[in-house]
């Protein structure tokens, strides 16, 4: 019986994951900044440069503080896939390599999507990514994936 229940649980889990991934596939992200940030739009390259640690500033020279969504969340994985066509593990490996040179400074992880939104809303230097469906007035969309 226990075996049957386990089996059942596994089945349900896998089905859930499937649903989640299907959901993720369809997730559309936008890159947002604080409303007071003078930047109105960013190119994909600029987004990449900020998120992959090339520049720690916005194109206008202001300090940028990128935010990551929680680790092992579908959002984070999807975002990076969309942005640089790499999954979360690859991104982690990238940062891990950079850590040795002392230069590496990955985006600050947030506890949750909401937390991230809150940080962006409060900090002028913050930049984050959120699903299109979660866009609020408190943030300014600077980049939308095609």
């Amino acid at each position: 019986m226990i075996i049957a229940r386990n089996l059942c649980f596994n089945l349900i889990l896998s089905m859930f994951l499937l649903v989640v991934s299907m959901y993720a596939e369809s997730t559309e992200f936008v890159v947002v900044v604080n409303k007071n940030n003078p930047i109105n739009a960013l190119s994909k390259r600029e987004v990449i440069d900020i998120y992959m640690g090339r520049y720690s500033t916005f194109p206008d020279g202001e300090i940028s503080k990128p935010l990551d969504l929680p680790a092992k969340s579908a959002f984070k994985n999807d975002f990076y896939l969309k942005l640089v066509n790499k999954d979360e593990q690859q991104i982690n490996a990238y940062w891990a390599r950079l850590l040795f040179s002392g230069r590496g400074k990955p985006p600050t992880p947030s506890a949750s999507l909401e937390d991230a939104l809150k940080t962006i809303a409060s900090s002028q230097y913050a930049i984050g990514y959120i699903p299109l469906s979660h866009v609020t007035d408190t943030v300014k969309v600077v980049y939308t994936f095609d």
Partner: protein
Amino acid sequence: MIKIISQKLYLRVALSIALVAIVVSIVSSMLSYYSDLKEKKNTNYLLVQQLAHTVEKAATIAAYLNDQELSQEIINGLLSNDIVQGASIEGKSNTKGEMELFIANGTTNKQKEAVLVKLVHPFLDDTFIGVLSIYPDDKFIQQQAQAALKKEFILMLIQSIVIAFFVSLVVQRWLTKPIQNLTDSFAKINPSKPETLKMLSFKQGKRDEISRLTQNINALMHELHLTISNEQTLRKKTQELEAKFRLIFEQASAGICLLDDKNTITTFNPAFKHYFTLPGEEKLSTLHFPELLNNVEKLQSLLLDIRSDINPPQTTLDVECKIGYKTVWFHCLFVRLTDQRQNNRSPQQEQLVEVILHDVTERAEREFQTQFEADHDPLTDLFNRRAGEKRLKKALRECAKHGQHLVLMMIDLDKFKPINDTYGHEAGDKVLIEIANRFKKRFNDNTDICIRLGGDEFIIAQQINTYDKTATQNQAIALIDELQQQVSISNTRTCAVGASIGIAIAPTDGTELHELMHNGDKTLYHVKETGRGKVAFYDDIKIR
């Protein structure tokens, strides 16, 4: 150079091989060095390329992040390779034209040989963000190649020397030593001494070139030995023969000489020379034979005759010639030499004439003496009757031939008998000799003939071209006058004789001798009868 070092064949061969080997090793090493160098360079270039690809990702990130430390690390890592001489990572200049990243280390100025890797944006495939340049270390490669070259060269050198050594060994063993042996045994041979022509030693059963050479030399020497021995025997015989002939030629008492076609003396023996040279003279006065014998024309015609094939091949001649003050008679034998050896003598030599001459002066003189004695009266040296008549006959023939006259005076001495009786025969002989001398003095032409017929009877004959009776008469009277002069018969005593002359003239008074003499006699008789001491002519008395 090799010549200076050694004359030994095997050393020279070895040295030559070593020399060639060294040259070949140098050349081949150089060739292999250059090909090796090129190959190594290529390999190196590939290796460097691989290296570049290995660090490409890290370099990309470093360039992407403009990360100095990371770049430095990468470049240092690259430089730790021996084959890398220098490396650099440069970022792409940004929009402001500044180059944000340039990290370089080592020698990075040789653009040509650098391995350049374009660094692609790690997240955007179509964007370049920098260049990674790695410069291969050519010096290191060269050093490596040189080390390889050195090793190879030394190996080849050793190999060459070893080969040269063994080749020299083999050459020495198989070639030089046998040749040396051959040379040594050859050196013992003295070609002038046939007994040293021994067989050269060689290893039996061997069939190599030297052995065959030795065999052939032996065969040759065997033949040579035989030939030389034969030759020597023959030569000895020839020498003996020649000595004999020479002895005959040189010791001959007869003078022997050979004349060529110009009658020049080509060869003569000592006796010949002795005949024709005066004591103290070294050379013959002339080599022209006819001149040497003072008888040029006669000898030349004789020699011409003997050379003609028609005539018998030999002839003799007695020649009188003067050598110095001596008159010498030679009995000469002339022989035309026909060459018995048929081979290749020039025709000139077939014209040779051999002359053998003996000094026959003594014999000739004896013969002359005998002849003289036979023809002359021993007391007066005038012709005797027999020889005189012969001469007269001859004179008559000549006169008839040339239209001459012969005056024949028959002379008889008067008052001679009393001298003989009174003073003896010796005194008579003295008178006769004196009378004969007076005849000779007066009648000394070649054509004059004085004859003592016997006792106190004489004939004087004269061959004359034109007969003049008066002249002849005067001559006869003058003769009588002279004959009448005193004759000294001893230191203190003289005496005188008279003479009667009867003259007959040929051809008027007779053409035959006996007739002429008879007529002369008659005339003389007439004179004697009519008173002595006169001259009478036959044509005067015959009328009566």
